[in-house]
């Protein structure tokens, strides 16, 4: 690294770190939904990436409609899009739980396969409806451009925006899980299902809502995702393996662990990819995670859960 001055190195670290933050946001937004589903029900939702894609396509539809209504609509469509994406994916998740996952609860490996099949079908549906080409949403003006911190450091506004969404959503989820009655039910079900049942909690209902909520979060993730990249039928599945690792690495049923591991994996990929090629950075990061998981299978933050 001899050919860089200290100042340049700092700038590189800040900028790579910031692009790592965008990756972190995508990982975290996807992993949050996956983590609460996996933590509570032990279900691995392989179609989670497709829920993100669905959210992104809903956002695209809303922005398309807004563009027809004119400039004012275009400036303010985004909150509407987030709500629409959430409702759409929440509803689909609810149906999937009701008609598929429910019957497979005591066969976790089979849920994994069935949801993968679902993902395959959804991908093909997206391809038939929206076409194989990637779609880009029309961005509101206030998301374009960048914030120049110093001469060398340039921070794009859409990156800041997705960071804010991620933070708000994470905090909201924390509040929901740790400060609401519903959260108490979820945590009770996670920790000891039969005892929670005995205490009068309708765990089937809790399961269904948790699954739908996890999918809804993926939908919001998809809406946020449209601000930093374009959407194709396979967009979500590109991130799914990394996201699984994020969830497992963080420790099942631990939100804090998910945040930390998403941060670690995203940052190391992003910073290393400046010094090595992108593929080697990814190989190195994922391999490290796998090796750590072999040594410490419970993940970073293990929580006591009765299986």
């Amino acid at each position, binding site marked *: 690294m001899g050919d860089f001055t200290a100042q340049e190195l700092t700038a590189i670290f800040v900028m790579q770190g910031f692009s790592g933050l965008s990756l972190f946001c995508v990982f975290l937004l996807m992993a949050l939904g996956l983590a609460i589903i996996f933590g509570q029900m032990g279900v691995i939702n392989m179609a989670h990436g497709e829920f993100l894609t669905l959210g992104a396509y809903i956002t695209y539809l809303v922005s398309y409609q807004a563009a027809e209504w004119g400039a004012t609509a275009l400036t303010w469509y985004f909150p509407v899009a987030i709500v629409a994406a959430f409702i759409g994916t929440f509803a689909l998740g609810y149906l999937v739980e009701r008609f598929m996952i429910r019957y497979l609860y005591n066969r976790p490996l089979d849920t994994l396969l069935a949801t993968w*099949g679902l993902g395959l*079908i959804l991908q093909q549906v997206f391809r038939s409806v929206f076409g194989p080409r990637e779609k880009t949403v029309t961005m509101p003006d206030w998301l374009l451009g960048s914030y120049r911190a110093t001469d060398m450091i340039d921070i794009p506004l859409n990156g800041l925006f997705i960071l804010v969404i991620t933070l708000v959503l994470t905090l909201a989820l924390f509040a929901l899980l740790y400060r609401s009655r519903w959260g108490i039910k979820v945590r009770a079900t996670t920790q000891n299902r039969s005892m929670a049942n005995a205490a009068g909690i309708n765990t089937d209902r809790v399961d269904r809502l948790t699954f739908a909520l996890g999918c809804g979060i993926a939908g919001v993730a998809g809406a946020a995702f449209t601000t930093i990249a374009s959407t194709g039928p396979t967009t979500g599945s590109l991130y799914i393996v990394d996201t*699984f690792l994020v969830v497992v690495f963080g420790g099942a049923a631990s939100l804090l662990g998910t945040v930390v591991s998403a941060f670690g994996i995203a940052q190391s990929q992003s910073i290393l990819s400046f010094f090595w090629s992108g593929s080697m950075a990814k190989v190195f990061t994922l391999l490290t995670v796998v090796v750590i998981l072999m040594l410490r299978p419970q993940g970073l933050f293990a929580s006591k859960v009765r299986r």
Partner: protein
Amino acid sequence: MQRFIKAFGGPTVLIQIAIIAAILMVLLPATTEIFRLNLFGKYLTYAFVAVGLVLCWGYGGILSLGQGVFFGLGGYCMAMFLKLEASTPEATKIQTTPGIPDFMDWNQITELPWFWEPFHSFAFTVFAVVAVPAFFAWLIGYAMFKRRVGGVYFAIITQAIAVILTILIVGQQGYTGGINGITDLRTLLGWDIRTDGAKYLLYYACCVALLLCLLVGNFIINSRFGRLLIAMRDQEDRVRFSGYDVANMKVFVFVMASVFAAIGGAFFTLQVGFMSPTFIGAVASIEMVVFCAVGGRLSIVGAACGAFIVSWAKTSLSDSFPQIWPVVMGALFIGVVMFFPRGLAGLVSDYGSKLMPGRKSQSKPSTDKPDTASRSSAGATPQEQA
């Protein structure tokens, strides 16, 4: 003789294998031209993987979403040997560095990398086709099963390994051939593998190897070890407390599955004439699980047929209706998992026992099981009391 038949799962299984042998080695070669037969040979290589998955997933309860890794490692070992044989200094004299594979020359590599050197020897290659995947499987299995990692975690980690290996191979183009893989393979020990005669011979070799695998697989599941595997899948702790080393059993069955996959991979390279990272990745690996699930995760013969039928359907459907295939595949997956967890083999044996009620007692124990296929619920009933 009676004991011998019993060791392979009774007369029904041997008759099934004999029927398969007749179809593969007499009927198909007699009725199809060599181009199709070569394709069939390619489908058969997936059957090796499916047989391995029956052992490790159906009986051991270990779902590996990374069987493509072992299929690919076996295939790559074979491809490296064939590539070196095709890259003689005479054949490659237009390159900057003659005598090394063409893709290395394109990537400005001037010397054969050290890990390619041993693949000049055919004996070493045959050894490596089995040993390299087996070693990796042992490493992964030992590290994870000794720490009692299993179930979903194991599935995710093996899937991640498949992804990592794909990225690595694609990224290190100069050493591995990148996304195109290792192509343009010509001869095996001076014998041109692209001629029709060679294709026939390789097809028959593949069939014989597959039939052997079917026999070995059936031998394993009908041995004492097979019964232990079932017990371990359904009540792991009880087996552990009875004094068995559960981790070692899992490692063994995982290594067996990987060796089967690797042999399939080597035959794939020989018959198709190239190997590429597409056959390693997460999607390819999970498709191999579909083959096994559709055929029947508890029946060795069923899974082999499943691999053949599904990959045949895949080729013909995705050629004529590219939009429909993914939907069919996904629906197949959901349908099999939710409604027919024992796959085609389960359907066949149910029908068989309806038509011939007296024969039910003769069929394999595995097909008479209730649908507690993957070990999970604590309430799974012990199967092996009979």
